[in-house]
């Protein structure tokens, strides 16, 4: 290293520091913009999430075991779906009773009711069109799929303009990492400057929703120079329905996955999806993410690294189109999502797909060992057993 190098390095660092200061200033003046999420996996997931097939199979016993679960019809008022519930307090009891077919009468193909409390429920694409046609703030109902990523998210401050103190209409109130599917098969996009959850006081969670919304909100004047944007935004007043048996993940439920993984690996300790769950890397798709329960200072030993549930087998196939289901699929090189090494060894993380579930399993680096193969086989069998109730 010469003196010239030192001098150049010093100038480079100073120039970069200046660039960073500029970035700081620019972010204050113009917070990060919205963007449609470009990842194909995400689009595929939402497309898939909206395609709940006609025949939905679920075990009444398992449904009943989920806290807050009711299998009410579309006009019975708000219900808590397993897409939104916490872990069952007890493992489900396997039953030999075949899972009943659920009536899809009065439902859109993805399971969202066409009416609620006697009022029509329009799809999200129609709601978006209302932004242009609505003359006043009359409320209406719209059904969509929300994806609320778990974890902690950064919402950029948006108070650069003192005359527009409430531009959180545009940036916040759901932050910028909330997504609403436009419709079955539609593209998922961040809803910045399109819809706001700012006035909704409840908890946002991933899953189907019927939302009571309006546009032309008189409070749009709070947005200052951006009033025109706020005026056209869809303001979510309430979420009146959040899924039921028809829209629950199937054929494997959260409880099924918990039971099966515990059966084959006592230390797996997966937690049911919930807002407090942090991503554990098993997020190849954006469904209901189940991560292991970690204990401070305790080594995690289970091969089960995490799991993701989607509403249906078809949804999973769309989300991971290149991945074959079952053990054979998990053994393919393309099933390795990533590898991780450390002083204690290394692993491949393989994606094992069984119906509507993807479980990420730690296996030996490179060629899976016999014990890896045996574990994958046992896991598939355990999941299938849950599915059939045997």
């Amino acid at each position: 290293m010469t003196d010239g190098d030192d001098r150049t390095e010093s100038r480079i660092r100073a120039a970069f520091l200046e660039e960073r200061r500029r970035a700081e200033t620019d972010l204050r003046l113009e917070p990060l913009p919205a963007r449609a999420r470009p990842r194909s996996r995400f689009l595929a997931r939402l497309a898939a999430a909206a395609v709940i097939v006609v025949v939905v199979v679920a075990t009444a016993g398992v449904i009943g075991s989920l806290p807050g679960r009711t299998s009410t019809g579309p006009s019975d008022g708000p219900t808590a779906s397993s897409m939104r519930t916490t872990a069952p307090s007890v493992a489900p009891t396997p039953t030999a009773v075949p899972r009943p077919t659920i009536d899809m009468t009065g439902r859109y193909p993805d399971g969202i009711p066409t009416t609620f409390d006697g009022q029509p429920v329009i799809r999200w694409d129609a709601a978006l069109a209302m932004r242009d046609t609505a003359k006043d703030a009359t409320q209406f109902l719209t059904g969509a799929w929300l994806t609320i990523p778990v974890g902690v998210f950064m919402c950029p401050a948006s108070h650069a303009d003192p005359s527009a103190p409430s531009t959180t209409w545009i940036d916040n109130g759901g932050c910028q990492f909330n997504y609403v599917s436009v419709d079955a098969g539609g593209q998922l996009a961040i809803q910045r400057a399109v819809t706001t959850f700012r006035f909704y006081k409840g908890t946002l969670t991933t899953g189907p929703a019927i939302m009571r919304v309006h546009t032309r909100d008189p409070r749009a004047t709070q947005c200052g120079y951006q009033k025109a944007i706020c005026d056209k935004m869809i303001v979510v007043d309430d979420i009146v329905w959040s899924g039921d048996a028809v829209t629950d993940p199937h054929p494997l439920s959260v409880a099924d996955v918990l039971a099966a993984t515990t059966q084959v690996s006592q230390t797996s300790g997966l937690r049911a999806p919930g807002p407090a769950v942090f991503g554990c890397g098993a997020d190849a798709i954006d469904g209901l993410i189940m991560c292991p329960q970690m204990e401070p200072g305790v080594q995690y030993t289970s091969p089960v690294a995490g799991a993701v549930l989607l509403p249906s087998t078809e949804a999973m196939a769309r989300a991971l189109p290149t991945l074959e289901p079952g053990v054979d699929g998990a053994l393919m090189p393309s099933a390795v999502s990533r590898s991780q090494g450390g002083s204690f060894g290394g692993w491949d993380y393989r994606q094992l797909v069984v119906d509507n579930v993807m479980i990420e399993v730690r296996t030996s680096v490179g060629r899976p060992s016999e014990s890896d193969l045996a574990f994958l086989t046992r896991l598939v069998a355990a999941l299938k057993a849950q599915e059939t109730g045997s």
Partner: protein
Amino acid sequence: MSGLEPVQSAAATSADLARDKPAVDFGAALEGQTSILLASARALLRNEADARDLVQITLEIASRRIGELRDPLALRPWLMAIQVREAFRFRRRIERFVRLSPAVEELQSSPGPDSDVIALRAALPTLPPRARAAVVLHYLGGLSVAEVARAMNISENTTKGHLKAGLARLREEFRDD
């Protein structure tokens, strides 16, 4: 992967992160890195819209994978490693990363860059993508050579080579002979 690395201290760290500290800490910590991420993204992509998009992608991935961060003090290297990887994916996807022609979109940042900033902006696009990434990570992000190597999944010697090439090119631009 949150705590999946079977190192006790690492597992404890990630679990502590996830449980014992208020969630808002992460949000604030991430927010505190936004400006350096934007500056870095601009240096990597030289296109304002893409740069901002890259920052969002980076923050989003970081938010979802915060459990993988074993050492909270290593937040910046971790974020920048994510960003560089995503930048290269960007390049593969849209071939903008290596758009080196003079027609690159002018950045719209605050006015009044000094001569070194102008020189830096002129020189960076002429560097090969990996050398550019190494320079950005090392001189802007403050990552050590070893950290840059890990972030880019290359050897330390290769990293040093990239930095040397970058330094030489920038010295020319700075006329720092």
